[in-house]
């Protein structure tokens, strides 16, 4: 005799063992549902983590870099609490390749443990140097030194100039290192970041690290660099710190450094320049001009939202799974209640079951959720960093268990409330039925009526199926649209591009320092002669002045106000708005800028009586121009008229705007929005306040006066030094042309991305009478490229000393990325599909299990297999009808609401299109699978005799 004590656990385990099949199905459903829940949590946790980690990887953990700090007392600031932590390290030398220019070299640093920790280096390959002759170099620095083929283990010889406090000695030595690490670019990031100031470069900023105790033999003093982790909580402490450092620079004679570092956008509300260029703020919200970060935020935020939608739907799925299970076991609950089990005991027994199930499901789900996000991050490359701490994983596991328990307890509390007889006789259905007003139907389709009533009395089942269908539809629609968006973004119209070695400079006139080295028509012919080249088209981009007779349009005023380009036109130089305080912007805009003396003299020198709006005219192939019809706002693109020089295309958005974004700490930054079409800011940023907006006043058919100025003088660097440009002789080419078409954007990359601008053909520019010199030659190759052809073409370019880049290779890479994106999104849809299929099937098969007696009865009164199947198919159809109707309805509402809010509320671009076909196809496939499953389940019941059905055997 079994004398083991009957405990709640044993009872719960017994139940699990006795209903293995049922529980297995339920567990599969719950696991699938929970994968999304855990994935949602992983996404949410790692989104923030990735942002921080990404920033650290790009810039380091410090808030400020002090590019000179020997003798500057950082410890004092740590003592007073304004600095949380700091470290210093030494630049010991400047190294460059003996085969390359001095300017292409880099600083070489020696770190200590503390500075290594704060610097947070990220190795693309290899490791930190551990021996005297080992070196790790940033990938961009290798590239600059023409060492782009360098791999770990290579011997690299460098000319070295030893550091000497804040510069480098002239005397050189040579040393050979073994490359042991390739670092992610950091110096390049700083340079990109400070592109705002065209004079800023930091070649001396260390892009190479050597072993901790390494020295350069030729002497000199190390250059001390400080890394400071600032205490932002105490904002008042910044000024003393800043002033102290400024004073330190002054005392060291370093406050006259030409470059100015702009720190006004950053976290500390400090809107002054710091002379000296020795202070780099890397701690602020806007301190990293890294679009990859924006992409990552966008993707992970979207991923979190999608996973959260799925998690909510999954939650209902889990509740549904438990509810179905409990419905099937009402009699058991009734029997337990009849033999004296209290509600509490019932909850304990079934709650323990739920706990056991959650203990089984949670680890599996968390593991798969982890794997899902890991695969996602792997596919997305280094944009997304997924490396959660162990306690985060454990925490998510515990949350998962709580989630299942909560989902289980809701139906359990309801189930435990029934009286024994209610449970045994299933009078719950009677109660539900009494609460519904049912009208007898005199003539009906038996299958349809039973299906309809069944859904009326089992609303929860309908709700859960509807929810999962709504989630499936919304997620699929947005995912497909997202995929389209990313696919469209990568389209380029050429396979190779040859660049000229020079390009025209200056905003108002075209200055050629090396006119002859620009690409010419015979280069186009030469390239076209290659047997693998299908076509080659030269593209130029010239400065052109739009001469405005009469009143200067507000639209053009705001366009000029937006852009930091016409630095000789206005007294203040750069785009005015960027340096103004919010309250000054509108006032300043109204009053207009002060013209510089140089600009006034320039106008006289070139005989401009009216005001010129300096912009660019770009040429494109006929095919490319015709493809711009999708952006057409007015008129038509007529190639003949463009070729004849009669017309040009004006690229101008419907509106432009200017806005301010306030950061959470009260600091601000201002932005110009050049690409507003159909109400959207295409460079989507949120949380800003629009302060100026102008509509585009031009229309097709308007005549514009365009003037091009050319100067072929080779006098050295006159323009770059910003000296008097009007000393030069200009050749002036003027023409009145009509605006044939206005398009909202110019998708082709070029030097110029500010609007408005003009587009035409090469022949169209020839009509001005000016010479054609190309900036690029765009090349299309044969369709079926092979590695051999690729090699041959590139060898041809190299032999002819063309400066080229391969868009074909880029496109191939993009295709690979696209494949991974497609794989990622498809797997989301597939997983969702599996969950939906599992839940819908579970809902209906449990209904069939519950309805054995009804099946028997219907068979007894003459229902055939087909008619019986139709009873359930009708239920499925109703569920799908309502679920899909609601799903597409909710999607439509969400889609158009979001579009409306983006357009009129927060003025950001809404990247999605209304796409329902894929979701409809998914629903159809889902319906087909569920129908087949139903059919097989009914068939299974039909294998039993009617009596067995009725007796529920």
């Amino acid at each position: 005799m079994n004398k083991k004590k009957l405990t709640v656990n044993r009872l719960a385990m017994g139940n699990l063992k006795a209903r293995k099949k049922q529980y297995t199905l339920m567990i599969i459903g719950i696991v699938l549902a929970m994968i999304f829940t855990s994935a949602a949590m992983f996404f949410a946790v790692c989104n923030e983590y990735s942002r921080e980690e990404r920033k650290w990887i790009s810039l380091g953990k410090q808030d400020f870099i002090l590019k000179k700090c020997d003798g500057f007392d950082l410890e004092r600031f740590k003592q007073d609490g304004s600095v949380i932590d700091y470290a210093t390290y030494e630049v010991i030398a400047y190294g460059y390749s003996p085969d390359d220019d001095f300017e292409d070299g880099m600083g070489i640093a020696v770190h200590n443990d503390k500075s290594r920790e704060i610097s947070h280096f990220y190795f693309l390959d290899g490791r930190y140097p551990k021996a005297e002759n080992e070196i790790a170099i940033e990938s961009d620095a290798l590239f600059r030194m023409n060492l782009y083929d360098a791999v770990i283990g290579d011997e690299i010889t460098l000319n070295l100039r030893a550091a000497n406090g804040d510069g480098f000695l002239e005397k050189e030595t040579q040393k050979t290192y073994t490359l042991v690490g390739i670092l992610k670019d950091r110096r390049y990031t700083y340079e990109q970041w400070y592109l705002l100031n065209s004079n800023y470069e930091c070649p001396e900023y260390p892009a190479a690290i050597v072993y901790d105790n390494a020295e350069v033999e030729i002497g000199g003093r190390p250059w001390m660099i400080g890394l400071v982790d600032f205490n932002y909580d105490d904002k008042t402490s910044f000024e003393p710190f800043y002033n102290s450092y400024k004073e330190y620079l002054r005392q060291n004679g370093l406050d006259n450094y030409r470059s100015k570092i702009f720190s006004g956008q950053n976290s500390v509300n400090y809107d002054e320049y710091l002379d000296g260029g020795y202070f780099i703020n890397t701690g602020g919200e806007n301190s990293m001009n890294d679009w990859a970060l924006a992409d990552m935020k966008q993707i992970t935020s979207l991923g979190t939202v999608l996973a959260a939608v799925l998690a909510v739907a999954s939650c209902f799925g889990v509740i549904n799974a438990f509810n179905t299970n409990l419905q099937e076991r009402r009699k058991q609950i009734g029997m337990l209640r009849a033999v004296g089990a209290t509600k509490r005991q019932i909850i304990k027994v079934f709650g323990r079951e739920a706990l056991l199930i959650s203990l089984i499901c949670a680890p599996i789900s968390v593991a798969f959720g982890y794997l899902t996000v890991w695969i996602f991050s792997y596919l997305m490359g280094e944009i997304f960093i997924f490396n959660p701490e162990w306690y985060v994983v454990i925490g998510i596991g515990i949350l998962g268990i709580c989630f299942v328990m909560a989902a289980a307890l809701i139906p359990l509390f309801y189930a435990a409330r029934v009286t024994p007889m209610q449970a045994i006789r299933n009078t719950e259905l009677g109660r539900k039925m009494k609460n519904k007003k049912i009208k007898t139907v005199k003539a009906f389709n038996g299958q349809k009526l039973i299906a309809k009533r069944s859904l009326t009395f089992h609303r929860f089942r309908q709700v859960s199926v509807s929810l999962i269908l709504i989630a499936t539809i919304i997620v699929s629609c947005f995912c497909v649209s997202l995929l389209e968006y990313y696919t469209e973004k990568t389209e380029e119209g050429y396979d190779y591009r040859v660049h000229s070695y020079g390009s025209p400079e200056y905003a108002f006139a075209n200055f050629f320092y090396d006119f002859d080295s620009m690409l010419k028509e015979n280069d186009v012919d030469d390239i076209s002669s290659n047997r693998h080249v299908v076509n080659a088209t030269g593209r130029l981009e010239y400065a052109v002045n739009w001469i405005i007779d009469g009143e200067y349009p507000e639209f053009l005023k705001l366009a000029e106000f937006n852009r930091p380009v016409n630095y000789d036109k206005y007294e203040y130089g750069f785009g005015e708005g960027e340096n103004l305080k919010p309250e000054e912007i509108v006032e300043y805009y109204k009053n207009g800028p002060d013209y510089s003396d140089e600009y006034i003299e320039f106008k006289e020198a070139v005989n401009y009586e009216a005001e010129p709006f300096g912009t660019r005219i770009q040429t494109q192939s006929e095919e490319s121009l015709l493809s711009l019809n999708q952006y057409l706002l007015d008129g038509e693109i007529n190639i003949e008229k463009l070729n004849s020089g009669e017309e040009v295309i004006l690229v101008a958005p419907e509106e432009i705007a200017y806005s301010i974004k306030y950061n959470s700490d009260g600091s601000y930054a201002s932005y110009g929005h050049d690409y507003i079409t159909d109400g959207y800011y295409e460079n989507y940023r949120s949380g800003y306040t629009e302060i100026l907006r102008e509509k585009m006043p031009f229309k097709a058919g308007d005549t514009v006066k365009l003037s091009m100025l050319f100067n072929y003088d080779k006098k050295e660097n006159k323009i770059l030094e910003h000296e008097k440009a009007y000393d030069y002789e200009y050749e002036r080419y003027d023409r009145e042309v009509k605006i044939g078409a206005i398009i909202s954007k110019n998708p082709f990359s070029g030097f110029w991305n500010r609007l408005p601008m003009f587009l035409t053909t090469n022949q169209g520019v020839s009509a001005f009478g000016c010479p054609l010199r190309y900036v690029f030659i765009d090349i299309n190759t044969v369709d079926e490229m092979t590695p051999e052809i690729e090699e041959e073409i590139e060898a041809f370019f190299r032999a002819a000393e063309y400066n080229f880049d391969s868009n074909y290779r880029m496109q191939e890479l993009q295709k690979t990325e696209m494949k991974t994106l497609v794989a990622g999104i498809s797997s989301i849809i597939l997983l969702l599909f599996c969950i939906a299929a599992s839940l819908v099937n579970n809902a209906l098969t449990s209904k069939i299990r519950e309805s054995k007696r009804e099946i028997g009865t219907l068979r007894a009164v003459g229902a055939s297999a087909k008619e019986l199947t139709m009873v359930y198919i009708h239920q499925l159809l109703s569920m799908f009808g309502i679920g899909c109707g609601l799903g597409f309805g909710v999607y439509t509402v969400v889609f158009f609401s979001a579009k409306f809010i983006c357009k009129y509320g927060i003025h950001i671009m809404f990247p999605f299109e209304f796409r329902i076909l894929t979701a409809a196809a998914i629903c159809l496939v889902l319906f087909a699978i569920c129908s087949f499953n139903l059919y097989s389940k009914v068939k299974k019941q039909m294998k039993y005799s009617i009596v067995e059905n009725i007796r529920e055997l």
Partner: protein
Amino acid sequence: MNIIECVDLRKEYLSGENIVNAVDGITVGFEQGEFCAITGPSGSGKSTLLHVLSSLENPTSGDVIYNGKKLSGYNDNQLSVLRRRRFGFVFQAYNLVQELTGYENIVLPVMLDKKKVDEAYINKVINVLGIEDRLEHLPSALSGGQQQRIAIARALANKPSILFADEPTGNLDGKSGREVLSLLKYVSKEFGITLILVTHDLNVAEQAERIISIEDGKIVRDTKTEV
């Protein structure tokens, strides 16, 4: 002439490792309009005989012949049509479709047959059974007796030739049981339907024109009674 008969009918069940002969070579026939009670102790095979006769279960061997045609030659669909058009069933546990109202349950076989309801006939059945005021109710709102009346009405809805009743009074109290039995007898006579009723209650059986007693799957007595 027999409307339904069986010849050397056998039905075996597997009970654990043993084979149980629930119906053991029974040959019997039933005439048109006859009221026959099949009786016997629990486990004697009376219900099984009824189930096999009515095509609710397939026999292990032997034949069921309806109107001269062997049911073994019918496929599943044909049997469904036969059940819905020619047979009526009344179960001990009523077996009403819980989601349908009384009236909808009654006309369900007609609707499954995609035929028009013979309103006059149905109304007559409803009147005879005295359930006019229960038609709008769902089964859960009806008493056992009322549910069984609805079940009888459903069984009669398609004007069947044979009404099979399996312990139709088994779940009812004495009074309700008697009423249901009277109704069955009445409708059988009124509509000329063969009534084959299974019961273990001798008082019920005695109401029949013919009583077949079964023990261990075999007919031990087949007697006509004076009613």
